[in-house]
């Protein structure tokens, strides 16, 4: 039993799922579900279909090159069974997946950070250029930021009141 990758979307195909198509040139195509199979039959290129891993990796949306991917490579020359090595490998596997997930999340947050700074720049520019668009009252309010306390002597105010 081997967990294969779907040819179209690159998700894992578990036993009992999906369809395998063997072409006349002996190339095997594995699909995780009928959605991918139908897209393949329509001759769609996965590199152009937005929700596939192929598109996301090609357009830099997801992490492509990392040393954690090297652990999952298919190997054609096996090594003799060693109990200690197997034990170490089994212990290491969840650690490696955790690290890989962390790195993938980091990649996406880094990608989105640039968007945040650009947004702030755009907002500052808009404030500078389009301040006239706001109604006068709000415009004045926006310019008047600090309250200035003016001291008036008490006798003067009493006189004014008396006059009125």
């Amino acid at each position: 039993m081997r967990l294969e990758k779907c040819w179209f979307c690159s998700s894992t195909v578990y036993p009992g799922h999906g369809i395998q198509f063997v072409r006349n040139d002996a190339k095997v195509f594995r699909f995780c579900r009928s959605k991918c199979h139908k897209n393949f039959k329509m001759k769609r290129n996965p590199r152009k279909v937005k929700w596939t891993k192929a598109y996301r990796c090609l357009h830099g949306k997801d992490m492509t090159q990392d040393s954690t991917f090297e652990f999952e490579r298919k190997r054609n020359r096996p090594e003799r069974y060693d109990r200690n090595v197997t034990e170490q490998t089994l212990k290491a596997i969840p650690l490696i997946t955790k690290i890989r997930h962390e790195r993938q999340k980091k990649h996406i947050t880094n990608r989105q950070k640039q968007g945040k700074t650009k947004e702030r720049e755009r907002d500052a520019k808009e404030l500078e250029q389009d301040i006239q668009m706001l109604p006068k009252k709000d415009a004045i309010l926006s310019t008047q930021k600090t309250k200035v306390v003016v001291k008036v002597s008490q006798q003067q105010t009493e006189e004014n009141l008396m006059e009125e």
Partner: protein
Amino acid sequence: MATRIQFENNCEIGVFSKLTNAYCLVAIGGSENFYSAFESELSDVIPVVKTSIGGTRIIGRLCVGNKNGLLLPHTTTDQELQHLRNCLPDQVVVQRIDERLSALGNCIACNDHVALTHPDLDKATEELIADVLGVEVFRQTIAGNILVGSYCAFTNRGGLVHPHTSIEDLDELSTLLQVPLVAGTVNRGSEVIAAGMTVNDWTAFCGSDTTATELSVIESVFKLREGQPAAIVDDMRKSLIDSYV
């Protein structure tokens, strides 16, 4: 010396077993008779390993090997690969190859020094063969058949080829492989030599349908019979092969 055996009432021994100078692979059969036949002859000299390839029993036609290595098709599962690696000695390199022609036993015939391959084999595979098996690779056909692995069986000491091989072809192959070759049959006239028998430098196993004449030809060409005068072999050749095509 040559032994006659059957695999589940089938005389095509070469399909269900693979015999080399360093190991022997045997298919998992219903009864243990097949395995015992190999075990009784060979187990004190070389490891006899029961295996399957890609879940099938036709291991002799799917894999190819010699004392230096074993090549397996891409259909071999990871568990089978690991099992073979654990059971075979460390000098034998076990390698799985990605090749369109996955029945390697039908496409490649080899001994410890030379290999004959299917003319349509990939360049990368050819290099892998040269590397893993440590052999010189020649692309050839035998009597016009491209499946060289099935129509000839040869070891370091001799070889048996398809009965309709012409004398010129026989001489050419003989010089290429540097071993004496004879055109003959196995299993009562079956032309598919490698499917009907397996052989290494000191033993041979044939299907139970093999006639005594065929068996004696095999024993003489592979030099399994100790100290037989050559004259008898020549006489036999005349009686066995009536026409060269």
